């Protein structure tokens, strides 16, 4: 386990800031990630937590190279992928998979579930026995085979997210990015999807980066946690240690702000543990 799957050094990502775009000409660049250093150990789930504007989604998109970093380096499985052009990334894609936040938007409305799950298989040289492979992928996420001929609008929210997982795992990738995959789901569905991902990650030995705003979910699923705020890492440590003894004030504020489902008359009173 000494050899991490991902090793990230001084990672910076800048994106055009459309809110400051002049009438004519290019939008100025805004630095979203301001120099991140961390590693993702093989075969474990790492949580990335932060509020809006923390840069957690940008970080995820840089890891799977949907975005190109402006500085620093990303070493994936011993290979520097920081500035690889799209064509050279393509053979690596089978090991860099992603499950999206919104399965409504991430599944093509005019393709059948079969076609959606078959796409990565076909594109990565597993075009033979497609039927069996898609059937296996569906079965893995607990969906009946009959769903193959359906379209996304004929599925419930939880079923759509299962399809998203089936597609991402169809290639048995080394790495999966899960970006807020349960934030649009009801709690009962959320629990199903999370236990499914938990089981599959363990069975398949996946390395997962689990992006979420919900520390309660991270606590359950992740072995280590990276806490982000405004483009920098506030705190990164093993999950048990982080929750037992959060070192940073911001982490403590985040924890204190979670409304736990239990009666606590003092929670809403101003004073103790007030967020900055």
């Amino acid at each position, binding site marked *: 386990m000494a050899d991490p799957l991902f090793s990230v050094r001084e990672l910076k990502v800048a994106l055009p800031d459309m809110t400051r775009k002049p009438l004519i000409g290019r939008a100025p660049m805004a630095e979203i990630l301001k120099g991140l250093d961390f590693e993702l150990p093989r075969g474990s789930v790492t949580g990335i937590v932060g509020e809006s504007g923390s840069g957690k989604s940008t970080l995820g998109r840089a890891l799977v190279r949907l975005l190109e970093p402006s500085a620093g380096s990303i070493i994936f499985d011993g290979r520097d992928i920081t500035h690889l052009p799209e064509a050279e990334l393509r053979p690596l894609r089978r090991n860099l998979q992603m499950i999206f936040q919104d399965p409504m938007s*991430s599944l*093509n409305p005019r393709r*059948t579930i079969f076609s959606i799950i078959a*796409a*990565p298989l076909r594109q990565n040289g597993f075009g033979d026995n497609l039927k069996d492979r898609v059937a296996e992928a569906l079965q893995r996420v607990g969906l009946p085979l009959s769903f193959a001929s359906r379209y996304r609008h004929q599925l419930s929210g939880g079923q759509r997210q299962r399809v998203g997982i089936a597609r991402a795992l169809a290639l048995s990738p080394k790495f999966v990015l899960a970006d807020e995959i349960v934030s649009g789901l009801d709690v009962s569905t959320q629990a199903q999807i999370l236990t499914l991902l938990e089981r599959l990650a363990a069975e398949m030995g996946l390395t997962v980066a689990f992006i979420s705003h919900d520390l309660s979910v991270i606590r359950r699923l992740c072995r280590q946690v990276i806490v982000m705020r405004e483009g920098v890492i506030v705190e990164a440590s093993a999950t048990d240690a982080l929750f037992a003894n959060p070192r940073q004030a911001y982490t403590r504020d985040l924890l204190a702000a979670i409304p736990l489902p239990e009666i606590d008359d003092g929670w809403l009173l101003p004073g103790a543990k007030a967020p900055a």
Partner: protein
Amino acid sequence: MDEGRISRHGSGARLWLAGGWLLLASLAAIFAPLIAPQNPLAQDLMFERLPPFWMSGAEPGFWLGTDSLGRDLLSRLIFGARIALIVAFAAALAACLIGSTLGLIAGYFGGWADRIISRIVDVWMAFPPVLFAILLVAVLGTGLSSVIIAIAVIDWTRFCRVIRAETMGQARMDYVENARIAGYGRIGIMLREVLPNVVPSIVALLSLEMGIAVIVEAILSFVNLSISTDDPTWGGIIAEGRLSIHQAWWVLVFPLVTLILTVLSFSQFGEGLKARFDPVLR
């Protein structure tokens, strides 16, 4: 899904009525020499301005009456369908191919491709379309192919603008990124992920454009700039009918009704196809 169900219920009758009329017009065009009761060019001053069959003074064999030169109106309409439909299909398809391709490229690739294509469209749209058509036909010379080229050259911008906007919307969807994750290249994503989602709009626009092409051809015929005056065209018949409106209203009314029904059928057929075959609405 509710909206889809509603539009699908309406689509059945619409699709069949519109499709039926278009099929009838197409069959008439293809088999015109076999169907037409008279020679559409045969003049007979003995039979000038005969009324349609239900009015007194009608002659058997001249179902919709004759024009001021004694030519059979029904036969002329049947032969006129040939020109109308050839122009509709050929011109609309050509405009669609040019416009949709450029729109897809501009919308999906953005950047310089988008800037250049969009500027061309802006300049193009600044020309008054009918004047533009007349000018083009004047330069190319009259004839069927000039009419088709003129309509395609003018109307591709319609497709380009709409398809560009649709494509830009689709390109922002997560499934485009999801396809990159799956290992698809840019062209592959454009064809596999984006195109199927703009096809319903293309079909709807195409059917609308076919109707527009029929009208533009009629306008060009009306101002005598379409094809040789020997071949009967709906626009030509309308132009002649206008001159004898007080003596023979039918020469103006029947081609107008035929034209309106055909144009309406094209647009309704497109909407009906979309409602029936788009998986999102099913």
